[in-house]
């Protein structure tokens, strides 16, 4: 059960952050932000090995006692971060990958909207509904 979903833009600006009800928003925002450092390390590490096509799914970035943070990057430097409860062991790696793939598809739909300028906040209602379905579906 995902606790927080964040879409972060190229310049590391937050484009969309959703936090589950009843959770400490500030702490989760902070965790998502610290996840960015780990993403940057991983991306830098992969680009050093030549000829290696970069894998979009970055896996578990960081695990604390309370939360686990997963990361996913796109080729346009847009990053997705999903935070889940550490206690929740039922969520397998495959399911997280599926969630990221669906998130990526929803993001591309938003970008195709001619009224959306890439780089600004995502205010699309379809995207909201999609994220709610994504989180509820697990």
């Amino acid at each position: 059960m995902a606790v927080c979903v964040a879409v972060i833009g190229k310049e590391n600006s937050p484009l969309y952050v959703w936090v589950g009800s009843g959770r400490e928003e500030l702490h989760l925002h902070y965790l998502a932000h610290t996840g960015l450092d780990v993403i940057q390390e991983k991306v830098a590490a992969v680009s050093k090995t030549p000829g290696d096509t970069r894998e979009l799914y970055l896996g578990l970035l960081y695990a604390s006692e309370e939360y686990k943070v997963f990361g996913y990057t796109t080729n346009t430097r847009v990053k997705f971060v999903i935070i889940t409860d550490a206690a929740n062991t039922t969520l397998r790696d495959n399911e997280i990958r599926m969630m990221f793939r669906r998130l990526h598809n929803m993001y591309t739909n938003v970008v195709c909207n001619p009224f959306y300028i890439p780089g600004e906040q995502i205010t699309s209602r379809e995207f909201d509904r999609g994220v709610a379905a994504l989180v509820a579906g697990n």
Partner: protein
Amino acid sequence: MPHVEISITCYATLSTCEAPGDSGAVHGGSVYPDIEVVRGHVLARNYSLLKENQRKVLKVWCLIWQDFQVCCSGMSLLLTPTTLNPSPQGLRPADPKKVSGELFTLTYGSLVAQLLKDYENVDDVNRQLERMGYNIGMRLIEDFLARANPGRCYDLRDTADKIQQAFKLYLGVSPSIGSWNPGGDEFSVVLETNPLAEFVELPDHCLGLRYSNILAGIIRGACEMVQMEVMAWFIADQLKGDNVTEIRIKFVKRLEDAIPAGED
């Protein structure tokens, strides 16, 4: 030409040997040349490429060359076909008039977004879209008449059918016709999906925008070119939360060819 019979046979063999080299490339596409023919060509080519046969090949070429010298010395221009067989049709280039549906949707979207930025007034944008549609419709009707060859319309129901056909032909959607009014001069074109407005979400500050207004203009322009004046407008739009996209079309009058002023 003295050696003409031999030369024609050899020329035929040699030139078709060149063809497999090309049709081999075409092979990668969707053309599968007749295997026997190819085998024959390959054998002939291999024959001519073997060292010991090179001499014979060269001799034949010399004979051909001499022939030409003899009979063509007075001429300044000689036209010959390059191969004996017509060129393979396999690699037909993609129909240049077809575009990917997504490209079309994105193009229309950026057009509307740019118009909005330029005019900043939703009503102006609506008007511009309708006018653009009108210009498109005037030209599109010619293409429709040429391609679909629909035949004369005897009443408005025929016209409605033709409009349905046109949607199918150009947008790939099948709208339904309905909601005829009692007088029989108004009807609705109902679209379940609107290919122009895929992925689009109207922002809050332009809820009055008729995003697909170009379609209304196209219908009006096309009908005007076939001597019918109609009014076309949107009464429902999926982008605004309705279930379907609906265009209402009303027949106004038949246009008689106007006599230009000054002539009687």
